[in-house]
């Protein structure tokens, strides 16, 4: 089974990289870029039958730092 795990910063956590990207887009002449948040995507290939609990644990224990990040799992 294939999964895509999307990790994003929580609301309220400042994202200096997102801000820099936003300014760079403005510098390229793209007006109206009101906000940019940078995140990460992981694509995992797992043995069929891997439990949702195990996937959730992978996210909580390593892929995301839940102090600052949220995660979302998509099955492909």
């Amino acid at each position, binding site marked *: 089974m294939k999964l895509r795990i999307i990790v994003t910063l929580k609301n309220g956590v400042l994202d*200096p990289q997102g801000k820099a990207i936003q300014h760079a887009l403005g510098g390229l002449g793209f007006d109206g870029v009101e906000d940019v948040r940078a995140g990460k995507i992981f694509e995992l290939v797992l043995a069929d039958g891997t439990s949702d609990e195990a996937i959730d644990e992978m996210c909580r224990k390593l892929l995301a*730092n839940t102090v600052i990040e949220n995660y979302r799992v998509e099955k492909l």
Partner: protein
Amino acid sequence: MKTAVIVFPGSNCDRDIAVALEAVTGVKPAMVWHGETELPSGLGLIALPGGFSYGDYLRCGAIAARSPVVKAVIEAADKGMPVIGICNGFQVLTETGLLPGALMRNSGLNFVCRDVPLTVDNSQSIFTSGYRSGEQITIPVAHHDGNYFADAETLDRIEGEGRVAFRYAADINGSARNIAGVLNKAGNVLGMMPHPERRIEAAHGGTDGRRLFEGLLEAVA
């Protein structure tokens, strides 16, 4: 006092901290590789050094925090062993959950490498007993990801419990409430971004860092 320095692939301040610890304790520290599962016996301090463990992959300190030896460090810390994490070592300690919060990219996006004035917030801990509360000291920083973040409730709690060891005298990286160093609740674990091991001799430009280790040695002796 017998000490240990944990060495990860990508650590680069492990020898600096080893020299500092030997200068203060008179005993050469044990250098412990990340793949070890046990720590040497009879330790009085474990140090997690600065550097770029595992190339900062995933998040700074994230992979190191899950390495075999760090499991033993967590167990020792839970039993009261003094543990200090400097720079990348601080990032590792937050990733383990031994310390609250997280260290994010500097707000100015620049790598900051220079001497900075720090204020000693709490001189009551074993790590800060060599200083006076409110005293200003100078210790260098060298980091890209030292922007301390924790939610407001956590910040209020650690401030209320006297767990802020050091603050930057002025903002250098966007850290919440200018926090530069944090203690755990029991007071036996300290994480800090500045490098006290780089201010051990007059030739380093000062000895404000040495006082941390001397105070610690006296406090735990």
